[in-house]
């Protein structure tokens, strides 16, 4: 092949890749339909289809080398999907914790709940701000909460290794503001006592979090009263009476945050305006959905970036594997292809046929990799130190349709590049040389 030709192809590949990355699934579907229509209805299309049919029917005889493409791409897609699913699961866990009809109020310029602090006066004023829902007795649904860290022995610890868990001190209002929290074992802690209600996720990670069991926090003994489930990030926490926690951690009457239930799901703007209008308050308010989405952003991007870097390097390997296989396949069929061209087939059907064959194998690889990742990792429990928190967050990997589609896109892109160069070589090789070649 001439150098100019190769450069042109590389350019074409780059343009196609950029377009491909930006393409939504509807676009890809449209493209597939267009190609299908072209194959079925036009003359060169039907020729391409028949040439591909020959290629595909001989795949069985080249099982070993075809498997290189399928397995190689399956590996790339599997790893990529697993990493993206981790980012997805992590972000989802935090996003689920928030909602549009609850708001969290922190001291101004606090990046996270745990670094915020509000004194008693501020808390009272925040609770009296208009826009907060009220309970049957007319009390505002505002829950001042204390967030601290506690060291506890880990379940899979070696020696006396400890992990950090987020301990939330709450009052009665917390149950009304967070209705998703329900006790699944034992009971709630009794106010005023050193009792804990532990999240299901925390109980999974830390040793001794069983109802009726005593655990040590610093020099004190606390009793586990029950286990709660909420289906979100709160599950990774342990809860206790705010006043008792404040005593243990010498926090007095200050709290970290106030979470409120808004009277109207769209009433946040008015609530925030009312807070900002109060000159005595130096606070930041956001809806909890905003707050938790922001917290998850950095870590999700980080995990995703790692996945894309690892997947990218693997993709290079798989791509060259595909190139290798397809060059060999083209070489093996050089005579046959040259014969077709000698009897009047144009180059295009040949190129399309080989591209189709490679992309079909790539698609199989993508589906295989995605399916494996889904089988192995969907729902797989992982945990990490969450951003903006002081405890381990346990979450589950979630292989979503979006993530799978991303994996398939990669697979098809690798197949496209892996097939294009061999296809062009097959179509441009001088017929006489090819016919003579053994």
């Amino acid at each position, binding site marked *: 092949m001439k150098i100019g030709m190769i450069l042109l192809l590389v350019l074409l590949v780059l343009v196609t890749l950029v377009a491909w990355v930006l393409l939504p699934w509807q676009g890809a579907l449209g493209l597939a339909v267009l190609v299908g229509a072209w194959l079925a209805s036009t003359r060169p299309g039907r020729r391409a289809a028949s040439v591909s049919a020959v290629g595909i029917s001989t795949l069985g005889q080249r099982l070993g*080398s075809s498997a290189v493409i399928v397995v190689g791409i399956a590996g790339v897609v599997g790893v990529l999907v697993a990493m993206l699913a981790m980012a997805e699961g992590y972000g989802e866990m935090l996003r689920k914790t928030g909602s549009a009809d609850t708001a969290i109020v922190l001291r101004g310029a606090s990046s996270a709940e745990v670094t915020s602090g509000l004194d008693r006066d501020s808390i009272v004023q925040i609770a009296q701000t208009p826009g907060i829902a009220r309970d049957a007795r007319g009390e505002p649904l505002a829950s001042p909460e204390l967030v601290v860290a506690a060291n506890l022995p880990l379940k899979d610890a070696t020696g006396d290794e400890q992990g950090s868990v987020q301990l939330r001190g709450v009052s009665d209002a917390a149950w009304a503001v967070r209705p998703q929290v329900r006790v699944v074992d034992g009971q709630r802690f009794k106010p005023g006592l050193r009792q804990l209600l532990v999240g299901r996720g925390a109980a999974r990670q830390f040793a001794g979090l069983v109802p009726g069991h005593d655990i040590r926090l*610093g020099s004190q003994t606390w009793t586990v009263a029950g286990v709660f489930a909420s289906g979100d990030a709160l599950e990774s926490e342990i809860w206790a009476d705010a006043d008792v926690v404040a005593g*243990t951690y010498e926090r007095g009457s200050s709290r970290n945050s106030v979470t409120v239930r808004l009277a109207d799901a769209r009433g946040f703007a008015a609530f925030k305006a009312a807070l900002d209008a109060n000159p005595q308050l130096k606070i930041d308010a956001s809806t909890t959905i905003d707050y938790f989405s922001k917290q998850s952003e950095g870590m999700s991007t980080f995990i995703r970036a790692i996945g894309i870097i690892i997947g990218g390097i693997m993709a*290079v390997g798989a791509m*060259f594997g595909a190139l*290798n296989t397809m060059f060999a396949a083209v070489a093996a069929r050089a005579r046959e292809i040259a014969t077709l061209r000698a009897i009047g087939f144009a180059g295009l059907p040949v190129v399309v046929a080989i591209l189709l064959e490679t992309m079909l194998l790539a698609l199989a690889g993508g589906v295989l990799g995605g399916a494996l990742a889904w089988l192995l990792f969907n729902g797989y429990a992982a945990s990490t130190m969450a951003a903006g928190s002081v405890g381990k967050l346990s979450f589950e990997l979630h292989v979503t349709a979006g993530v799978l589609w991303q994996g398939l896109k990669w697979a098809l892109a690798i197949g496209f590049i892996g097939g294009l160069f061999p296809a062009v070589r097959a179509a441009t090789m001088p017929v006489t040389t090819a016919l003579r070649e053994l």
Partner: protein
Amino acid sequence: MKYMHLIWASLFRRKTRTILTLVSIVAAFLLFGLLDAVRTSFEQAGQSANGAQRLQTGSRLSFIQALPQSLGARIQQVPGVKAVTYANWFGGAYQDPHNQIFSFAVAPNYLDLYPEMSVSDAERKAFADTRTGVLVGEGLMQRFHWKVGERVPMQSTIFPDRSGSKNWVFDISGVIHSADKKGAGFFDQLMLLHWSYFDDTTPYNRGQAGWYVTRVTDVNQADAVAKAIDALSANSDHETRTQTEQAATASWVKQFANVGLIVTSVMGAVFFTLMLLSGNTMMQAVRERTNELAVLKTIGFSGTSLLAMVLAESALLLVLGGVIGILLAEPLIPAISKASRGMVAPSPVSLGSWGEGLALMLLIALLVGALPAWRAMRLNIVDALARR
């Protein structure tokens, strides 16, 4: 060895195929080099000789709980303790609260316990003389294009001053150079400010220390010293937990992720693919050369020497690609450290990793070469020449 030329020639008999296979192998071992460096850095976090000599004492209750300042003098009295220093987490951020920086408020003798950080004498004196002075890691200076002598506004995400404002202003007194250029990751991104200035300015610290760092005289006594330090505050309202820096870092890292498991599963997927790929190449190569191999046999090469030659060819292929891959990983490692701002600071490819890598290359070469080599050995001359 005398057949080296022959092996080399047969390897590059089909240039395109060999080069394409090589690139795949290079990619696989590049990934191996990078991931193994990350894994090693996580495993060896804090495992330096300096790290073993230092003990960290924090609150038993949790890492956010501070300790009384009086404890420092009492730790100093514990037999086996050479020096004690203390620090607080400052929680600094530049420009945006999410742009966080590792920043500690430290005691005057903090640097003495960390020979890993080197600061010139003049700059160290300037730091000691400037109340609002800070020492900044080299990487951090570059990241924000700061210069020595510059006044920088910072936010603390935790501590307000007495007027309730979280904006702090510091003067950069000097640069922290990392003594060990290669594993600079963390110290490179660090900012140190005066504990006294910090404590005077914020009403929330009230003379407390976040944690103590102790240097022991004898590494072998470290555990005993740690127990003695914890005994000082037993049954008080500020019980402590003392660990070697090594143990503390290891358990901290483990809370973030089980890096070993992730790396192992990714590498498993990569090498499985690689084996299939290079195995296929070797099969093709030997199948194509059936004729030539038969000729070699005819002129007197024994079956075993053909077996050895095919195996050598596959070993050459793998080692060539593998070595290039790991060599490529070397310059990329500092780049990763930089791009992630010290979050991931892979250590340079160690001798151990090279050893592991080479062992993997040879193992894969053996696995993928075995079948074709066996075929070459059992080749029947008459059948092969007649192309049956």
